[in-house]
């Protein structure tokens, strides 16, 4: 086993262990749960943006679809929560499949089209005409599956799977080929890489991750409205956290979530009136001085960052 792979494994296992133990010593479980959700979403963004270059401004679409996939399974089919989470993930994948034509676009056009698609899904789900199926704008209230402890554990499992996927991408020829596609799709095809297939696989993998996260989120909350689980904040936060730390690495998005979401909550508790100002300045500083994320501080010195 190469040492860089050992380091990666150590970081991943340490992260999972810390978040497994923390609920025992820290009371604000919702905050810990949100941390885990953003760790998942930031890695999901990492898969699609870091490894293929598509910026998913409508990433929350998969998350919300996963949450509603969970809710519908529980409300209409009385499915056990774990199964409903898996279905949530599959609903994310189904939405991803539906949106594969967007991959023909690039850059800002893709980002805008993806944002529009997520809004379309929100308004579809929130349509009063679908009240019998989705409860429309009136929101869902899931009784019977409410179990924050199990939901938190499920979120950790999803995080472990997501990190596993990113570790694979970072250390496999498949991931290398994805990065080649991101750098230059034409050259990648001349290296024998099936560009369309690679992009679709990465796209569906990131949709699966967000769908599963949406499923556990719905499980944890049990009561929510379309605006909660389709909030654009999820997309923006996940993207900003991933970029802040540095994409196409395993550590970057982790560092981004811990620092930025940590500061977010710290300011929120202590000086909420300065929140927007401090947060805005932080992000501007990053874009100006560290466009490749915090990890570039290390890579510039020639250090290897897993």
């Amino acid at each position, binding site marked *: 086993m190469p040492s860089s792979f050992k380091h990666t494994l150590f970081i991943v296992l340490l992260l999972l262990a810390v978040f497994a133990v923390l609920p025992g010593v820290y009371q604000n479980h919702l905050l810990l749960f949100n941390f885990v959700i953003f760790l998942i979403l930031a890695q999901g963004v990492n898969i699609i943006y870091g490894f293929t270059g598509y910026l998913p401004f409508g990433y929350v679409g998969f998350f919300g679809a996963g949450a509603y996939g969970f809710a519908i399974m529980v409300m209409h089919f009385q499915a056990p929560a774990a199964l409903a989470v898996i279905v949530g993930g599959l609903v994310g994948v189904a939405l991803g499949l539906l949106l594969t034509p967007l991959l023909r676009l690039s850059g800002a056009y893709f980002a805008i089209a993806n944002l529009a698609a997520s809004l379309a899904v929100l308004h579809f789900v929130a349509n009063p005409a679908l009240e019998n199926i989705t409860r429309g704008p009136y929101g869902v209230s899931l009784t019977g599956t409410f179990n924050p402890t199990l939901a938190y554990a499920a979120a950790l499992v999803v995080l472990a799977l997501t990190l596993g996927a990113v570790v694979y991408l970072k250390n496999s*020829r498949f991931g*290398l*080929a994805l*990065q*080649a596609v991101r*750098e*230059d799709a*034409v*050259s*990648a*095809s*001349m*290296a*024998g*890489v*099936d*560009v369309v297939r690679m992009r679709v696989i990465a796209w569906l993998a990131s949709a699966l991750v967000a769908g599963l996260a949406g499923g556990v989120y719905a499980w944890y909350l049990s009561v929510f409205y379309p605006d909660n689980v389709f909030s654009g904040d999820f997309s923006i936060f996940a993207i900003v956290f991933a970029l802040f730390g540095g994409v196409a690495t395993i550590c970057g998005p982790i560092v981004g979530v811990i620092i930025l979401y940590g500061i977010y909550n710290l300011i929120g508790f202590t000086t909420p009136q300065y929140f927007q100002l401090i947060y805005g300045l932080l992000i501007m500083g990053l874009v100006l001085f560290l466009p490749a994320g915090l990890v570039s501080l290390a890579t510039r010195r020639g250090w290897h960052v897993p």
Partner: protein
Amino acid sequence: MSPDSAPILNVSKLVKRFGGFHALDGLSFHVLSGEILGLVGPNGSGKTTAINVISGLYAPDGGEVVLDGVSIGGVASHKLVHRGVNRTFQVPKPFLSLTVRQNIEVALAYGRAVGTPPEMAALLEQYRLTEVADRPAADLNNAQQKMLDLVRALATRPRLLLLDELAAGLNPTELDWIAGHIKALAQSGTAIIVVEHLMGFIEQITDRVIVMNAGKEIFEGKLAVAVRVPQVIEVFLGGEHAA
């Protein structure tokens, strides 16, 4: 060198339009295994378009591209790579943030080279990239990026190799050196199409040239003969020089 007689590539009546502009307008030619064919012509005559169609970047609007007796017009690039077609680009297009070694690894892993795959160390050494092997491709100079582009193509073991202005920007010593490599590749059986503006280089390496103008072939044969054909002189230098 002795090209064997079977044409590996047959292009017939190829048409490619961009809007109302006919970039290729009934182009026909063939290449034999082991042969080095030059495609020459003024800017805009359709040389690069021809290469783009043959390598699958553009689907043709008419005519046929036949590789080993099978029509390949419109087949996706990566599938053509697996069938033994590869190319370099006029402006080299390496994967800039990946290291030189990783650039080549992608092609070795996905190129499905027929027979024994080429060895990384040998490729690096032959094309003078060993010292920069672990540097990002973005750090390379233009000549090195061109060599990396070529090595990326060679890693897939092409039987038909299309070189789009590989020589442009190389110094005379580098030109001699790369000419030797190209000839050696042809001697090992690879069919090579060279698009080039440097006539001395073309003269040095090609067996035969096709002179193109406005998307059509206007001459086929030895470059030394081509330069005495009035029609060829006319398209390169303008009408008054042709007499």
